[in-house]
């Protein structure tokens, strides 16, 4: 090898280093834009619909739309935990329906044959029982996934049908009307869950905010949250670090089930009636919100903030399209396109991140020592 080629090679290497450094910087900026994409999408939605319709940006309409968002957001926050673990919960829509039916059944009176009386449990007991039913359904999912090693998709697909079947059997396919209760039986107040307005905001919106705060605390401030991210990021490493992986996995399905039951109570209360078909395909909206919010279906990556924004994007998009008079068929198509776009952008971001890291590493490594 001659000296000349050596010099030439060093120059090429220098050029490569500079190019790599510039590439790393460019990718970093692009990355920031990608990071905020869900927020940008929401802002664009609000701007476009606000421009197209005078009624879109009124306080009343915003509150109404947020009420709709709240139901999906509550489901989505539970779903987020399951997805962070690297799982999926298809049964939430059915659990939502089952929860409403259980509430309807209880508010209509429980016949206690031994005593020959009909008991009318107060609303708070009904709420606890319904949340318990949702949690128990989640426990079944968790046991199927952890003990029987059933793939989450299959396990929760099974419970999707089973929970819906139970709801239809219990109600005989009928809707429970008039859940307002009877003052003489001391079981009134169920309607407040969906229609109450403490401090001027509907209870469901308050509930969404409190739940979001609680899940944020759980994810960022407790060992459980860290265990969940670790389990989703690398289950084997988590297990070898002493993380109680099976307990973490079971618990997220239970929380998701409880969230679904809470959603069911809100819907039944808003309508003061409970239909066994309530919540059909809601699981898909919840998954969509989590995904649009930047969570990875492979687990380990996702935030409460992102999921909330995702739920708002889906809700405002649907309601906005109705307000500006776009046909339902187009709405369905547009929703699908938005979900795909979100995931395509997400893949793009991951690629940019990897390339940025590689470019930075090349630049760092080829620098003279």
């Amino acid at each position: 090898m001659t000296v000349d080629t050596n010099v030439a090679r060093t120059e090429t290497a220098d050029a490569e280093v500079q190019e790599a450094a510039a590439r790393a910087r460019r990718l970093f900026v692009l990355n920031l834009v990608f990071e905020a994409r869900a927020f940008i999408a929401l802002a664009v939605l609000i701007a476009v619909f606000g421009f197209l319709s005078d009624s879109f940006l009124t306080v009343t309409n915003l509150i109404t739309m947020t009420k709709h968002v709240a139901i999906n957001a509550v489901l989505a926050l539970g779903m987020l935990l399951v997805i962070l673990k690297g799982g999926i919960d298809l049964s939430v829509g059915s659990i939502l329906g089952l929860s409403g039916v259980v509430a309807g059944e209880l508010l209509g009176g429980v016949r206690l044959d031994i005593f020959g009386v009909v008991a009318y449990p107060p609303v708070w007991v009904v709420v606890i029982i319904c949340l318990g039913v949702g949690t128990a359904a989640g426990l079944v999912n968790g046991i199927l996934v952890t003990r029987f090693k059933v793939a989450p998709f299959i396990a929760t697909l099974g419970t999707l049908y089973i929970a819906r079947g139970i709801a239809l059997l219990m109600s005989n396919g009928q809707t429970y009307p008039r859940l307002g209760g009877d003052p003489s039986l001391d079981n009134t107040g169920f309607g407040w869950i969906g229609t109450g307005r403490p401090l001027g905001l509907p209870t469901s919106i308050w509930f969404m905010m409190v739940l979001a705060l609680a899940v944020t605390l759980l994810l960022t401030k407790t060992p459980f949250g860290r265990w969940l991210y670790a389990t989703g990021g690398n289950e084997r490493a988590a297990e070898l670090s002493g993380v109680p992986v099976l307990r973490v996995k079971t618990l997220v399905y239970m929380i998701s089930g409880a969230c679904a039951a809470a959603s069911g109570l809100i819907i039944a209360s808003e309508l003061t009636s409970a239909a066994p078909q309530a919540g059909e395909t809601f699981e898909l909206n919840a998954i969509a919100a989590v995904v649009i919010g930047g969570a990875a279906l492979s687990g380990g990556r996702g935030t409460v903030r992102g999921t909330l924004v995702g739920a708002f994007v889906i809700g405002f998009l649907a309601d906005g399209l109705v307000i500006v008079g776009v046909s339902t068929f187009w709405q369905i198509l547009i929703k699908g396109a938005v979900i795909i776009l979100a995931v395509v952008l997400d893949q793009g971001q991951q690629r940019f991140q990897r390339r940025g890291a590689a470019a930075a590493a090349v630049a760092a490594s080829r620098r003279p020592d």
Partner: protein
Amino acid sequence: MNRVPELGARDVTKVYGGTQALRGVDFDAAAGRVTALFGENGAGKSTLMKILAGIESPSTGHVELQGRPTAFRHARDAADAGIAIIHQELSLCPNLSVQDNLFLAREEPGRLFTINRSRQRRAALDVLARLEENLDPSTLVADLRLGQQQVVEIARALLQRAHVLIMDEPTSALSAPEVAVLFKVIRDLTAHGVCVIYVSHHLEEALEIADDVVVLRDGRLVATAEARTVDLGWIVLQMVGRDQESLFPTRDLIIGDEVLAVEDLVVADPHNPDRLAIDGVSFSVRSGEIVGVYGLMGSGRTELIETLAGRLPAASGQVRLDGQPLSRAGVRERIGRGVILVPEDRQRDGLVPTMTVGQNLSLAGLSRFARRALLSRVDESAAVLSMISDVTVKTSGERASIGSLSGGNQQKVVIGKALMTGPRVLLLDEPSRGVDVGAKADVFGLMAEQARRGLAVLFNTSEAEEALHVPDRLLVLSRGRLVGEFEPRSISRELLMSLADGAARRPPTSDGAHS
């Protein structure tokens, strides 16, 4: 060298995440010759081969074929250019027949859209005969022994008329007669002008077949020579580097009481329930002591250490910590009692790629930072920062992504994570795997420091140099049995290797069946 190189690499660099696998490598392999590639684990051999075979593209630099720069976009491009690679992990479809595998994605066209099976069968029989492998081409690959599967891989390369054949550890699963056949085939191929690039950990074997020798160390190409001018000692010296003594500092021993005691431990092979991975092993580790376990692939070294960590169940025998039995405890309980494992494969078992450096470090000892139900960020951050400086992780901070670290620094994070649980027994499975020479010294230094602080340290290794220099006491495992216990510096490298090898490389039984 005056020959025109058949396949070469020019100033090739490869970066994975934050790990630099190759640094400016210039490599040549000549037609009609066997070029053997030597290097320790993590030296960059596999990466270089993948780049030559078009499986990976270089971060900078390029590949040359017969002196012309080429850029392979896919492995298929390289295959079409006549470069075939035979992987350590075989890439056959076990559910298909030998013949279907041989012609996979290169099927002989028949009438319309069908496959011309009779022509494929004749070609398959021809090529198998040339390899002296008496096989029915319609046998399912799943029914073949590993050695036979390897021959099928080679046959596939021959059918593609490859003029460059890259072989990654081709003999690791072969019996002695199969190796002899393979070498005959390789000689036959080079006589026909094929360029063979050969990689193996079995140095002697590789030197026997090699014409040219190339040594990689720490991602750099450090030496090239003609095989007949060098010997094993020279190769080892080049692989390990001249500073090998400084890698392994001597230290004063302060040996305390027995901490870990293993009595007559038996462990079933998790992949093959009929076989015992560990067959009646007894030993103990004292506080302040570093005990090494040396063994080849399949010796049970990984199973032994994973059983102690609670990941594999023991079939029988006793494990005691400070005299108290540990037998039924799982991973979590053992960590609580002070026994923690630093796993061999840090990507698969050690790190959570989606979390930061700090979160990875604190993961195992997280409950120490819980104040009532909530984590104390202040305590956590303080402990993480002090651990980063204790184990000398080079990072931009606790919030850096774990993927941005080099292999050696990632390994230090995994070790730091284990230390943050305040263990009494530190188990390390091949702690120097995939880390560069400088970081290796750091890792061994860390182990020595922990032993000085009174931990009982048990590690296993497949590198003879490490086995001879790092531990205070060395156990040699062969086929699940303890075949020797030594003061490490008291035995020779040759004795050690033959002890570990002896049982593992016994002449094959009648039909060459090899489990």
